[in-house]
């Protein structure tokens, strides 16, 4: 429709529409929403009392907006979830790594503690972000659409971004090749997630830590030298294992993205 309503019709609309049928009023109203020129005509047509009231309301709202509180700032970092409860475990892992570095720096004769501990350092906080005991809101988390492996991987990334810098400092201070502390740490984390899909992340992390300590840490401390798995020659092996385990986790996350994770279920 291109024709504009007559000024008479608009002034009738402004005064309440007495004597005009409803359909005409609706048509005027629909037209006014899209036509600035006719709205200007309408402004002149309303009686001064109404115009007064409208400007008072507009002023009130404008001052309210100007003096009221501003919009709430969004905190995006919190999306990593349970930051509050994981902090002590992150601090423990950090402390452990720094102590190992200090120990290694002081006692040259012992095998490198940093390399021995680095693989299992992220496991403690990773288990903490997905545990019924440590996540106070686990029962809620378990009922959410966005639960399962993708959420666990998101939280794991949060943990890694906090642990890896510490590992880097410890590794740099003791002068080891980055591959020897980074790849085992990533490999064990991916392993915990892959195994965790079957037995639960906390159990998987515990099992891996115990196995690594009993199988590698204790014998090498007894022998007084580093095992072959932590020498430069084993780097391709670590790289392969890390890639393979990460692939297992990713494929699982992609195929069953929202399967409620074992660990959060009531067993």
């Amino acid at each position, binding site marked *: 429709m291109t024709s504009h309503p007559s000024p008479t019709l608009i002034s009738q609309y402004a005064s309440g529409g007495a004597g005009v049928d409803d359909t005409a009023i609706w048509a005027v109203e629909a037209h006014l929403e899209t036509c600035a020129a006719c709205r200007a005509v309408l402004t002149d047509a309303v009686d001064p009392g109404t115009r007064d009231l409208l400007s008072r309301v507009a002023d009130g709202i404008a001052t309210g907006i100007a003096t009221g509180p501003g919009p709430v700032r969004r905190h995006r970092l919190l999306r990593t979830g349970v930051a509050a409860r994981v902090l002590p475990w992150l601090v423990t892992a950090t402390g452990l790594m720094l102590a190992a570095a200090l120990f290694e720096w002081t006692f040259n004769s012992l095998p490198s503690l940093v390399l021995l501990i680095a693989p299992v350092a992220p496991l403690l906080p990773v288990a903490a972000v997905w545990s019924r005991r440590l996540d106070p809101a686990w029962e809620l988390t378990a*009922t959410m659409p966005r639960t399962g492996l993708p959420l666990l991987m998101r939280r794991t990334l949060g943990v890694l971004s906090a642990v890896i810098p510490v590992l880097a400092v410890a590794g740099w201070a003791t002068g080891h090749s980055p591959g020897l502390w980074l790849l085992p740490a990533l490999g064990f984390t991916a392993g915990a997630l892959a195994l965790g899909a079957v037995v639960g992340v906390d159990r998987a992390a515990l099992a891996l830590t115990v196995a690594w300590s009993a199988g590698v840490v204790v014998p090498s401390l007894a022998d007084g030298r580093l095992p072959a798995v932590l020498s430069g020659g084993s780097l391709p092996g670590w790289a392969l294992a890390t890639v393979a385990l990460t692939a297992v986790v990713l494929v699982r996350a992609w195929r069953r993205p929202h399967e409620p994770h074992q660990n959060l279920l009531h067993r």
Partner: protein
Amino acid sequence: MMRTVSVAETAPSTYAWAVHAEKLQVRAGRHLAVNELDLRLGTGVHGLLGPNGAGKTTLMRALATVVKPAGGRLTVLGGEVTGNADLRRVRRGLGYLPQHFGFYPRFTVREFVEYIAWLKEMPKAVIPGAVQRAVERVGLADRADSRMKTLSGGMLRRAGIAQAIVNDPAVLLLDEPTVGLDPEQRLDFRELLREIGLDSCVLVSTHLVEDVAVACSDVVLISEGRLVWQGTTGQLTEQGGAGDAGDSATERGYSSLLRAYRERVSA
């Protein structure tokens, strides 16, 4: 701001009952806490009554998809919850307040409800508005930016209700929601329940028979994991005789039904 209504929201529902259980069995640990329960719930506020250990919380957990049923059939919002089905669609329509409401103490109320809204996969654009509305509906607007650890027990309960209703759930499950609320807040809460119950299915588990009498339109009575009785609140008051224990008609009805059931079982 105007919200676009999606096709999914206006589509007619394809299920007869929001919650439909047939011969449902659910375990709590090794104990079969819900045993061969048949239940159908439609729109309205349903009160779930029963003595201690009747299986109320276990039933709530099964409906909230925290626990997988051990046997029988359970459909929530037309989606099968029993098998390995994708629970995402069902979970988007759920609101759940667990009996032990776990929260992150350092989060503010707004941050917590926002985080839950994000976990519920609500569109980013609607989250701030929905959070504000939920917080206002439970009367916590003035404490929205206080940390959860500074809240009193009743306020925490209300924060729990806010996170449950933030996504306007089609099925709202509240486990002991009135614990810690003072009489005035209980009145507001009943009003809120009635409002939500107009177009969604609300199941309230409670010990307080008086709450059921005023706030609920229907009553579900269970004992030892089985359905004892289901009917309207009016019908419940008619069940009690002068000789039954209780101070109100509803309480007398409750004890009369329970006594009759126990006699039936022991006979």
